[in-house]
Each structure stands twice: as C-alpha cells, then as structure tokens.
C-alpha cells in the first residue's frame, strides 16, 4: 500500500443519479463491476502462467510481470473479456424487465412481447 499522498476517490459535484430500485442496488452493481475487473485480471494472470508454461519458462514473479502477450494472445484475451462482460451484464441490459412483460401481457397487447426484443 502506498504511503505517499492519498488521492480523492469520489468526485465533487451533484449526487450520483439513482438508476435501479434504490441507491443501494446501484452500489451493489458497482461493486460487482469492480469484482468483475478482478476476476478478469485473475483470469489473465492465469493465462500468463499458461503461456509461460507452454514456452517452458518458470512462472516466477518477474516473468509474469514482464510478460508481453503476442497479438494472437492479446486478441484472444480481448474476446474472452467481451464474452465475460456479455454474460455478466446480460440481466442488467435486458431490453424489457419481466415486470414490464407481465404487465403488457395482462393488458392483452395481442402480440408476443418477448419476441423480437432480444438484443441480438
């Protein structure tokens, strides 16, 4: 832990807007986001170990820190991050919440509200 001057960790300005059912839900999502960054970093560290092992290099701290991924490895990692983000955020980015779908069905909208609304 750094012993020097400490940075500010929250911005001056208006309060953070509320997004979900309440500020605590928002805070929990933001913590999950930070945790997802940790999982992603851990996964890349594991990949670095595997790359070093494949090259016959012992995975000592120095070798891990100085590892420079090839273009192919970097591209594979980017694809893995994208897939993980897609899985982690699926529910948060659902086009219609189950509550909205239920309401629209009970009003006899006459169509299939879930159909054609998939993000793909």
């Amino acid at each position, binding site marked *: 832990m750094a012993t020097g*001057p400490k*940075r500010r960790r929250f*911005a001056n300005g208006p309060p953070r807007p509320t997004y979900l059912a309440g500020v605590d839900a928002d805070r929990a999502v933001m913590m999950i986001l930070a945790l997802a960054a940790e999982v992603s970093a851990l996964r890349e560290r594991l990949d670095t170990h595997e790359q070093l092992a494949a090259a016959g290099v012992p995975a000592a701290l120095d070798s891990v820190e100085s590892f420079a991924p090839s273009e192919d490895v970097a591209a594979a*990692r980017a694809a893995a991050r994208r897939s993980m983000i*897609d899985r982690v*955020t699926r529910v*948060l980015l659902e086009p219609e919440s189950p509550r909205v779908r239920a309401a629209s069905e009970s009003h006899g909208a006459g169509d299939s509200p879930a159909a054609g609304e998939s993000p793909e």
Partner: protein
Amino acid sequence: MTGNPVVQSPHAMLIEETHDERARDAFIASLREYTMVEIYPRLRKHYDEVLAPRYAERHGAAPASVDRVRTVMEASPFYMGYSLLVRGTQELLWDTVGEAVERQLPALIEKAQVLRTGRGSLTLDASLPLPNYTAAVDIHVMPGGFHTEITEDDVFAGALYDRGVHVFAFGGLGPLNDELGVATAAAVRQQFPDFAPQRILDLGCGAGHATLPLADAFPGAEVQGVDLAAPMLRYASARAAALGYSLHFSQQDATHTHWPDASFDLITSTLLLHEMPRPAILALFRECHRLLRPGGVMAHHDLLRWPDDPFDAFMMAWTTRHNNEPYERASGTLKFPDGCVGAGFDAADVFVVAQPGAYLEEVYQVSGIRGARKR
C-alpha cells in the same frame, strides 16, 4: 473488438503498471467499448422499434421532445441498466488508474522536476482564482477534477488523465492521445494552405495531448499552452520534454490571459468549449480576437451542433446528468457564427471542418473544428 489500451506509447511520465493493473485497465476499456459500440446501437434500436411505437400507440405520435424521450427512457430498465453500467465504468476507471498513479506519485513528481528543467518553460500562478464553473463540479466524475493538488508540486491529475483518457477511449485517441490535436492542425492547414503561424497558443491544454501536434504541424513556431490546473501543467510540461518538445506552459485563465493584444497567429482549443458555460465561451472568443494578429486564426475542436432528433439530443445530454459535464449543451447549441461576430470577427471569416471519422462517431456524430480568421 479491440479493447486493448496497452498500445499507449510509453514516455518517461506515463505511469508504469503491474500485470494486474494492465489487466484491470483492459477490462475497463473492454467495458467502455462494449457499451459504446455494441449496446448503444441496441438501445437506439429498442427505442425505435419498441419504446417509441408503444408511446405512439398511447399518445398518437412518437415522443416529440427531449422531455418526452426522457420520460420514456427513464422508465426503461434497459436504459437505466445501460446508464448505471456506463456511470459505474467511469467511476471504476478513475479509481483503478488512480491507484496505480498514487502508488508511484512521489517518483513521478521527481521525474517531472528533472524533465521540465531541460526544455521549454513552466509558469505557475498559485493566486489564479478558479472559476466557479470549474470549482463546483469534477468533470468526467474524475475525483479532484483537473485542478485539485494532493501534495506539493503535484502531477497526480495529469498522470491520471493521460492514462485514464486512453483507457476511456479504448485507445481511440491514438497511441499518444493526440488524434484530435492532429485533426485540428490538419483542419487549419487544409483551410489556410499558405498559413505559417509563428506564435501558437493552445487554450485549456491539459496534459498537452493536442498541444504537441501543433508543434509538429508548424515546425519552428513558438507554442504556448495555458490551463487553469497546475497539476495538469506540471505534467504537460514534463511530458512534452520527455517526448523531446520545447513548449511553454503557463497557468492562466483562457478568458483573460496576461499577453498583450496581437500576440498570436494561431489559437486553438480541443474539447474545451463543451466544459464551459456560455458566458465563458463568449469571453474566450473575445480573448482570442484580442490576442490574434491581423490574419490570425482561432480553431476549436468540439461538438459542431446539437442534434435535432429528440432521441439523439436526449442521449447527447447523457454526460450532463451522468458524467458531471453540466455545460455540454451550452456549447452544442451555441450559434457559433454569432459568438464569433460578437467577439469582433467577421461572419464571412467563420469556417467549419467536420470530422466524420472522428473518435466515437457512433455517439458523437457531430464533432469537428470550427473557427474564424481575424481580418
């Protein structure tokens, strides 16, 4: 999907990161790219195909104003989830990069002290008052904004922004974060092929990302950069020296500088106007007119216009509500030629150069360079 911000060109002032810090940055860059490139278009499609027609069914027509779009969007869990994700990513970005900067801040300060004695100059003014519009809000939700000093001879904000904006743009500003500055210089050359400015001033220069390209575009010219924020200027000065440039940086308010009338041939700004309230923008134009020599040019890279479409206008204002950028609309809706004429320029001498391929064109479809030449 690139999401690979590790392509940033190293220089002596750029922070060094551990394996895991680089990996966290890469994750955040991927999140930014995912939300801007993949999710934003889906949101637009969902609005066009589901939300607007549903509204029209009830009200007879699609939402015709920004306020009506807001009502529709803020009731949409998709939009609220998207907004939380983008806001959460922004806070995570600064805190993640900030941790790496904080860890090596004493060493960065020492490096800056050595580097900036070698080339160019740095003039700070601790008595310069910070305008309320800057003091009241940390823009981009960057804790401390550009101006806060957390220690003596501080470069924290500069180091944070240099790495942070690169991750934010998922590398889209180029390896030296300078593509907008390169575009500004190119627009001036394109507009005025025979123009050879001897003295150049970059307003709101920040870390100097757009200042260095001016020296490249006009070799031999003297280049000055001004900013309100001392930590940015200390960093900019050291970064310029580290990259081999001899530029001059000073802490001044761009709306009233210390220089006498007719001091410059070219005055530029990049992504500055949209962080300023309207009266300050107009004061800045007047200051440009005062500082320019006859035949001199001012050129500002920013939003060119505010979208007419209510959905686009609503989304353009997203940064106002969610990213601490309260004045975005003030510059976006500014009648630029009127502002120039009010500052003393002739309406016939106003020019616009659109940059359709510019950074994040999916979202910022209307950015480019606007300016005027003084008679």
